[in-house]
C-alpha cells in the first residue's frame, strides 16, 4: 500500500466555516468522499498541507424539493444516497442511473455528487505514480512537470487532452442543472454546461476559494433522458465514453457525449439530422463532432 503524504485536517461544521478555511488556507484542498483525492495524493499528483473535510457539514448532504418543482441536492450527498432517492429516481432517472455506474458500490457509498462533478480530468499518462511520471519525463498536466514537457496523447498539439470522466455530468447537463458555488465573496450559480474548461489542465471554472455547495435541478424536461457508459469492464472502470440523450417529441433529440476530451460536449444539429434520417443520422452527425484521442492504456 502506498503511504499518503503528511497533511493536517480541518473540520468545518458549516458552509461558512468551510468557506472561511478555504480563504485562510489557499493551499488546502477540499475532501468529501476522498475516493479520487486520496489515490491521487498517494500517487504524489499533489501534496496539500491541509485537507478541509466536508463530512462534518451536515447541510451539504440534504436533498430538498425546490419551489419550482425541481431538486436541490447538497454536494455532500453520497452517490448512493442520490441514486436511491425516490425523487431522483422518479424525476431524474438518468442521474440515478449514472450514480450507479460510478466505480463500484463501495465507492458510490463514499463518493459524493459534488466530488463527482469536481473529478479531475484523467489520462493514462498523468494518473500514475511519481516514479512512473519521473521515468516518463512528465507531461503538460503534471504541475511539477519539467520544462519542455509534452502532451503524450497529442505530442504535436499545444493542449492537454486529459479526459473529463465525471459520470454524472452529461445527464445533469441535459437536465439543465446548475451548481451553487459559495465563497467569502458570496454565492453564484453556474450551469453545468458552463462549468468545465476546454483544456485538461484548466478543466474547472471554479475559483480556488469557492465551495460547491449544491446541484440545483429545474423540473425535468418533457420526454425521456437516458444515460449510457461504455467502459472496459462492467465495474470499477472510468468511462471510455459517456453519453446522455434526451428526446422530446417537440424539440427532437439532444445528446451529450463525454470522456472523449476535457469537457462534456453537447452535440449540435441533431434535430435536423433526426428529421432527415432518424436515429442513424443522429449517430452519424454526433460521430462527426467528436474526435477522441486515446487517453487510456
Amino acid at each position, binding site marked *: 500500500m502506498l*503511504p499518503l503524504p503528511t497533511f493536517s485536517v480541518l473540520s468545518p461544521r458549516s458552509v461558512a466555516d468551510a468557506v472561511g478555511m478555504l480563504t485562510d488556507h489557499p493551499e488546502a484542498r477540499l475532501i468529501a468522499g476522498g475516493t479520487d483525492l486520496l489515490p491521487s495524493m498517494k500517487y504524489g499528483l499533489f501534496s496539500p498541507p491541509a485537507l478541509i473535510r466536508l463530512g462534518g457539514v451536515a447541510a451539504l448532504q440534504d436533498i430538498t424539493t425546490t419551489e419550482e418543482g425541481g431538486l436541490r441536492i447538497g454536494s455532500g450527498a453520497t452517490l448512493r444516497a442520490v441514486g436511491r432517492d425516490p425523487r431522483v429516481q422518479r424525476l431524474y432517472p438518468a442521474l440515478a442511473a449514472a450514480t450507479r455506474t460510478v466505480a463500484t458500490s463501495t465507492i458510490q457509498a463514499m463518493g459524493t455528487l459534488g466530488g463527482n462533478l469536481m473529478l479531475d480530468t484523467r489520462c*493514462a499518462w498523468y494518473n500514475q*505514480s511519481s*516514479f*512512473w511520471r519521473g*521515468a516518463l519525463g512528465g507531461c503538460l498536466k503534471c504541475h511539477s512537470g519539467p520544462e519542455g514537457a509534452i502532451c503524450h496523447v497529442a505530442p504535436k498539439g499545444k493542449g492537454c487532452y486529459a479526459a473529463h470522466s465525471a459520470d454524472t455530468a452529461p445527464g445533469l447537463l441535459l437536465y439543465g442543472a446548475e451548481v451553487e458555488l459559495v465563497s467569502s465573496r458570496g454565492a453564484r450559480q453556474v450551469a453545468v454546461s458552463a462549468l468545465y474548461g476546454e483544456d485538461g489542465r484548466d478543466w474547472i471554472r471554479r475559483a480556488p476559494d469557492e465551495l460547491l455547495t449544491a446541484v440545483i435541478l429545474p423540473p425535468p424536461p418533457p420526454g425521456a433522458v437516458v444515460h449510457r457508459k461504455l467502459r*472496459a*469492464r*462492467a465495474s*470499477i472502470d472510468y468511462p471510455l465514453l459517456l453519453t446522455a440523450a434526451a428526446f422530446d417529441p417537440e424539440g427532437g433529440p439532444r445528446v451529450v457525449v463525454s470522456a472523449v476530451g476535457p469537457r462534456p460536449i453537447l452535440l449540435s444539429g441533431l434535430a435536423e439530422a433526426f428529421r432527415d434520417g432518424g436515429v442513424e443520422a443522429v449517430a452519424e452527425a454526433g460521430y462527426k463532432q467528436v474526435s477522441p484521442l486515446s487517453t487510456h492504456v
Partner: protein
Amino acid sequence: MSEHEKPSGEPVPVGRRGGKIDGLPKITGAARFTDDLTLPGMLHGAFLRSPHAHARILSIDVSAAAALPGVYAVLTGADLPTPYGVIPVAQDEHALAVGKVLFIGDEVAAVAAVDQETARRAAALIRVEYEPLEGVFTIEDALNPDKPLLHDERRRKGDTNVLRRVFQKYGDPEAGFAEADVILESSYDYPGSTHVPLETQVALAQPHPDGKLTLWSSTQIPHYLHRIVAKVLGMREQDVRVIKPDVGAGYGGKSDPFANELCAAALARKTGRPVKFILDREEVFYAHRGRHPTRMTLKMGVTKDGRITAADFKAWAAGGAYASYGVVTAYYFGVFLPLPYKLDHWQFESHRCYTNHPPCGPKRGHGAIQPRFALELHLDKLAHAIGMSPEALRLKNTVEPDTETSNGLRITSVALKECVDKVVAASGYLEKRGKLGPNRGIGLATSAYMCGALHPIVQSEMPQSAVQICADRSGRVSILSGTADIGQGSNHMLAAIVAGRLGIPETDCVVLESDTGLTPVDLGSYSSRVTFFAGNAAKMAAEQLYAVIRAAAAEKLGGDDVVMAGGKVFRASAPEKALEFADAVQLAEERHGTLGFVGHYKPPKIGSRFRRQSVGPSPAYSFTAQVAEVVVDPETGFVTVERIWAAHDCGKALNPTIVEGQIEGCVYMGVGEALGEEQSYTKTGLHRAPSILEYKIPTVFETPEITTIIVESNDKEGPYGAKEAGEGPQLSTVPAIANAIFDACGVWMNEAPFTPDRVLKAIERRDREARRAAAEEGA
C-alpha cells in the same frame, strides 16, 4: 464420497468434498501473512528503481540518503555482487543493479529506515548518474546483432539478445507435409500478461546474535530461496532458515528469488535489526515474471479424413531483462505443442530473447499457453478447410494411454476423449455450432499439461519431495512438508492423503509446511508438481504409519481383516468391536515406540530416445477439454464470454471441491488473458498500466458461468490416482473463446487479447473482403 480401489482391492477413502483444512482462518482473517508479522525494532525497506530502460550506471551517491534521520543502512549493487538466477545455467541477476540497469523499474539501491515513508524519502535522495544506452524493445531488436547486448559481458561477434534458441525435429516433416491434403500456415501473437496475486511480494528478515538468519517470505519456492539467499549473502546454508507463512497466491509470480527478499536479508545483517520489505502493487508489475509475449508461426497439414500429418512451429518470445525460467520456456514451447495429439512428423524452433522490459517467467500454464493458442485455432481452421467437425478432428488425433509420443514423452493415463464427450454433451456443442445466429458462437479446445517436471532444476539424484508424519497419543497426526501452499490447497491435499489412508477426518491432521528449519525438502510449488510429487511422498509415509497401527490393532482385535475408517479401527468381520483411532495409535506406540515416518518421491527414470529431452517430460499428464459460448457486439467489438464448460482429467480428485475451485480459477485467468490483460509498454519501455485499475483483470461481471466436470482416469503412479488440476485447465480457455468468436462472426482472432478494437478491426476486414469478393463475382 468416492473411493479409490487400491491394487490390493482395499478401498482408500480419498475424494471427500469440503472446504480446505486451512480455509477458515483465511475467511475469518485469522491467517497470518508475511506482512502481518511484526518484530521488535523492525525496520522497513524501500528501493530506488531505474527510470531508464537501458543505461550504464556511472556513479551512485548515497550520502544524502544515509544522512537522513531514521535511515539505518543503504545498499547498492556493490554490496551484493554475487550473481544468481533460479536456473543454474542462467545466473544473470543481481539483487541490485551492478554496472547497468536493464528496465524501467530495475532495482538500483535499497534503504532500511524506521518506517516506510522515511525509507522511500531516503531512496529518492540517492543520486545516480546514468549513461543512457539504446533500448532493445522488440523481437527484431533482440535478433539484430547491431543492437547492444543487455548482458554484454558475453559479447562475441554476431551475438544477439537471444538467451536461448531451441530447435528440435521429429520424424520427417517434409514427408509429412507431402502426405497432407490441406496445408495451412498462420501467424499468431500472444500477449505478455502478469499474475496479479492478491498479496504482493513481502519479506521479513531477522538476524540472530549467532550470525544466523531467518527469512519469512511470500514465496512459492522456499527451498531455492534458501539456497540463493545463502549464496548471495555468502552464508552457510545451515545458517539460513526460510519460512513461508500463509501466501495470498502466486500463479508462478513468486517462483523466483526477488530483490526484496535478498535485500531484506542483507539489510538485516547489516543493521542487526529485523527488516521488512514489501512491494507495492506497481512494483509487482516490475517484478513481473509473467507470461512471455510471443510471436508464432504455425504450419500444419491434414489429410481429407482429418489425420494431422505434419507441423512446423516457430516462436519468438520477448522475455524482458533477465532469464528467470526463460530457458525452460523455450523448451516448453515445443515440447507442449503437439500434446494432447499424436503427431509423428514435426519440428519447432523457439527463441527466448532478452528485451529491456520487466523480466518474464512462469505463469500458470507456463510455456504451453502460447503454442496451445496457436495450435487449437489452427485445428479449427483445418477442420473448417476439410469440412470436418472440430471435435471429430481432435478425437481422431488424440494420444492414446500407455504410449510414447514422437518426442519421447511417456504417456500413461489419458481420459481426454471422455473430457471431450462430456463438454460436448453438456454444452450442446454439436447442436449449437454454426447455428446460434449472428454474433453468438460456440468454440472448443483441448489441452494437456505436466504433473511436475521429471528433472529437478538443480541436477540431483535425491528425492524431489519429502514428507514426515508423526501420530501422537491424542490421535492427531502431524504432517511436516517443505511444500508451499500458496492458496492452491496443497496443505489440504497432504491431509487428504494421510487422513484418507488412516480413516480419520482431515481436520485431525496438522500440516506444518514450508519451514526449511523444520520441514523436509520439497522443491516448491511450480510445474504443477505438488499433488503428484509431495502427494506420493505423503502416501509413502502414511502407508508405513497405517501398517504399524493396523498391525497393533490386529493383535488386539484378534484378526488381520482390520479396516481403518470413520475414525475407528475395526475388523471388517466384526465392526461392532471398534477401537477409537487414538486407542489404536497408543497400542501401536506401545509396540513400536514413537510413531514417526518419512516418505519421499523421486520420479521414475523414464528412458527416452532423445537424450536432449531433459526439459518437458513429466511422470504423468493431465488433460482438459473446454467449450466456450460467446456473444460479440459488432458495433463496439466487445466480446462477452457467457459460459464455459470445462472437463478436466485430474486422475483422481482428492477433494473435488478444491479441484473445481482450481478449474474455475484457471478459466477465470484464461478469460482475463482472452479479453483484456496485457503487459503493454510505451516505446521507451515504460509499463503502460502498472495498477489493477488499468491492468484489466476480469471483474465478477466479466466472469462467465463456469460448469466444471471432473474426469478421473486414475493414474497408476499418481497418489491414489491423482494428477494435477492447478494449471492445465487454463490452456483450453483462450483458444476455446477464439474459436467461439469465429463461430459467432466468422473472424479468426490470431492475436490476443480479443479487445474491442482488435475485434472491430477483424470484423471490418471481414466485411471488406466480403465486399471485394462480391464485387469480383459481379464483375
